[in-house]
């Protein structure tokens, strides 16, 4: 018993909650316009190259206009000053934005060594080029990226054609028009509408043509042929054929698995790969998604969040399809009473096995009939017994809120992954992690690189969870290991080996 108590104490005291000076403005009013329940993305990236990860949060605007009319609706860039102190640099960086924004995708799309930013909004997307002097420039108009006024909730940067520069996949949600949006009620009270009241939309793919120009290849790639109600996307080389594939979560319709054929085209194969819907056959309210290898078999697995009674489905990649492993790993039973948005595979205790962090809350309003139970805490499910099971850990020291985005990132370079989380109409929080155990970070500059560290595998991708991204070093917990063999597999290149790499450092290949 004493051991259990001590273990609980150790786990509970591992975290310190730090509120940040930023609160999401959703413009939720008496009329429940659907966009008001959807914000909460996070971008974590070192925009100024000082070695510390900075934070960017897209923010809401007036509804139904979708226009920002107050400084409290501005998107915000928080510069990491060290020691968990942050300074608002939004104005200098020119990142305040103008519309209702949800997601932020950080990546160096022009290969100039500086991380740029794409912001996804209600009426389109905005591409900001990082000039390296603390200033970004809105280059959307000249870039050729035009989402034609559609509502984008996220996306992923990937080099789908392996030409060395990053292309852009955009996730589009539904066609929303305030003029035709019905006034929905739940148990007699105004609340957000079910997605069935809105028409689906197609996702979009933009090919990077070089020189800061993109071309819309949605139709020729096959992406535009499939309409869904997209919430998030994860990209990885799931079939290990050298080309990155794309998994898209859809809200109450079948998910998409776009398999990259390597010739510029994708085929949608979610049913064949077993990830269109969980075993029950009922398409859930699939939300945020992450793809990493949780069981050390070298293949990239999937997890996504959903609402109560839908579980957070976990899929083990078997090479030619996915196996649903929520039951044997106990994750189904743990997550069935939960509703979630952001999610991330992350080794939060540095024991060498990826755990799962989730930002939880209901989609319905806190003013609605189910408002009393809409707020939920953040959760951390620990991988045990060589990833055969996940177990609940003591509640993280934060109050229940309408959590949306979550990103695991080492904000103070101590080798432990901290958690950054957003919540509707509540301050953004960092959960400082003071874990034990050795670690290694890989500062791979390119996305789509597979990395082997001992018997662990990871891949570089900036998108994570719901509406969020992390242009961060790839993190591996090492447990007691003092050295480890590292291999990097870049598409189309010879593997690079780094034998007996010392623990507790950031490897810059």
């Amino acid at each position, binding site marked *: 018993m004493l051991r259990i108590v001590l273990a609980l104490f150790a786990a509970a005291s591992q975290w310190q909650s730090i509120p940040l000076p930023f609160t999401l403005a959703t413009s939720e009013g008496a009329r429940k316009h659907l966009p008001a329940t959807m914000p909460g993305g996070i971008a974590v990236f070192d925009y100024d190259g000082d070695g510390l990860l900075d934070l960017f949060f897209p923010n809401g605007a007036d509804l139904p206009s979708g226009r920002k009319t107050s400084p409290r609706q501005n998107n915000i860039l928080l510069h990491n000053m060290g020691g968990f102190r942050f300074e608002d640099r939004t104005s200098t960086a020119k990142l305040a934005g103008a519309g209702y924004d949800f997601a932020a995708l950080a990546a160096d799309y022009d290969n100039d060594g500086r991380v740029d930013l794409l912001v996804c909004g209600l009426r389109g997307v905005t591409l900001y080029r990082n000039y390296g002097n603390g200033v970004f420039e809105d280059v959307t108009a000249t870039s050729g990226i035009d989402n034609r006024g559609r509502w984008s909730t996220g996306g992923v940067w990937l080099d789908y054609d392996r030409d060395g520069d990053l292309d852009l996949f955009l996730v589009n949600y539904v066609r929303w028009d305030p003029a035709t949006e019905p006034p929905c009620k739940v148990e007699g009270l105004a609340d957000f509408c079910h997605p069935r009241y809105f028409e689906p939309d197609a996702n979009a793919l933009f090919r990077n043509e070089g020189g800061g120009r993109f071309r819309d290849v949605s139709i020729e790639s096959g992406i535009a042929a499939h309409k869904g109600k997209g919430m998030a996307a994860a990209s990885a080389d799931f079939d290990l054929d050298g080309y990155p594939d794309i998994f898209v979560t859809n809200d109450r319709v079948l998910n998409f698995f776009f398999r990259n054929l390597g010739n510029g085209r994708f085929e949608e194969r979610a*049913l064949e790969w077993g990830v269109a819907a969980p*075993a029950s056959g009922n398409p859930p309210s699939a939300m945020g998604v992450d793809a990493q290898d949780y069981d050390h078999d070298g293949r990239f697995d999937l997890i996504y969040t959903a609402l109560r009674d839908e579980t957070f489905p976990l899929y083990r990649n078997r090479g030619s399809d996915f196996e649903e492993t929520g039951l044997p790993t106990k994750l189904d039973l743990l997550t069935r009473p939960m509703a979630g948005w952001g999610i991330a595979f992350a080794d939060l205790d540095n024991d060498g096995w990826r755990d799962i962090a989730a930002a939880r809350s209901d989609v319905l309003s806190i003013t609605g009939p189910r408002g009393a139970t809409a707020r939920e805490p953040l959760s951390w499910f620990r991988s045990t017994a060589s990833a055969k099971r996940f177990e609940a850990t003591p509640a993280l020291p934060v109050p229940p809120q309408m959590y949306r985005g979550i990103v695991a990132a080492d904000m103070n370079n101590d080798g432990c992954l901290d958690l950054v989380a957003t919540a509707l109409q509540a301050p953004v929080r960092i959960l400082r992690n003071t874990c034990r155990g050795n670690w290694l970070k890989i500062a791979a500059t390119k996305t789509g690189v597979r990395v082997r560290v001992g018997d662990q595998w990871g891949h570089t991708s900036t998108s994570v969870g719901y509406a969020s991204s992390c242009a961060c070093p790839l993190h591996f917990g090492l447990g007691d290991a003092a050295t480890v063999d590292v291999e990097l597999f870049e598409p189309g290149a010879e593997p690079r080996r780094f034998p007996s790499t010392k623990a507790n450092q950031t490897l810059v290949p």
Partner: protein
Amino acid sequence: MFVIAAFALLFAQDPATLSNQAAAAMRAQRFPEAESLYRKLVALEPANPMWRMNLGLALYSSGQYAKAVPELEAYHKAKPEPGPLHLVLGTALLKSEKPCPAVAPLEVAQRWDKERANLPLADAYFGCKRYALAARAYEAAGSSHARRAAHCYWQARQYPEAKRLYQSLQATDAEFLYEFGDTLARTDGPEAALPHLRRAVETNPALIAARGELGKALLATGGAAASIPHLEAAATADPALLLPLSRAYRTTGRTTDADRTQEKYRQHMGTK
């Protein structure tokens, strides 16, 4: 003669006399007579809400719930303060098959008279599909309503609470076994649910929902072949089950059936 008759008519239409006669009729449970007298009083003094309340009570007492509602509502509109009549109004609405409008007066009544209001309030929540609230109200109404409370927790997807109550019950009918099994599938996993679901289907093979759950539980626990007849039966009512059915076919080597069923599922779900 004419003078006497006119005097008698005048006397009979005196509100005080009519009121006394109506009250006496109510006490004697001569409700049609009371209704008639109160109608006269309403006609004589339309601004007096008391007559409408009493008319409403007379109608309610003679089982004319739908007719009682507007009279009682008129009284409540004139005198909105909370009181025991909320229970009558709420119950009248409930018995007139208007459970959602019944909720508000019964919630007021529950603050005044928990003992008598809990059950109609629970029924109103239930009829209004507010299952979580209904479950709590049935539980508060006493242990004899535990089955209803369990059913409502199950409907509200509050499975741990449903499980707690189902475990305390001894029923053996198919619906009970199905709901208990379905609950256990969600709280403890498909293995724990199988005995209950099997008994539910044995008790009533026509309970299609139970066959669907049994099929899913069998498939999840390695019984793909055994799951097929149940999933085939249930998929006719619930096309979502075409997906587990196609997986069951595939697991048992029936690839053609699996492909055909998967395509049918895709068409039902409308992705193409």
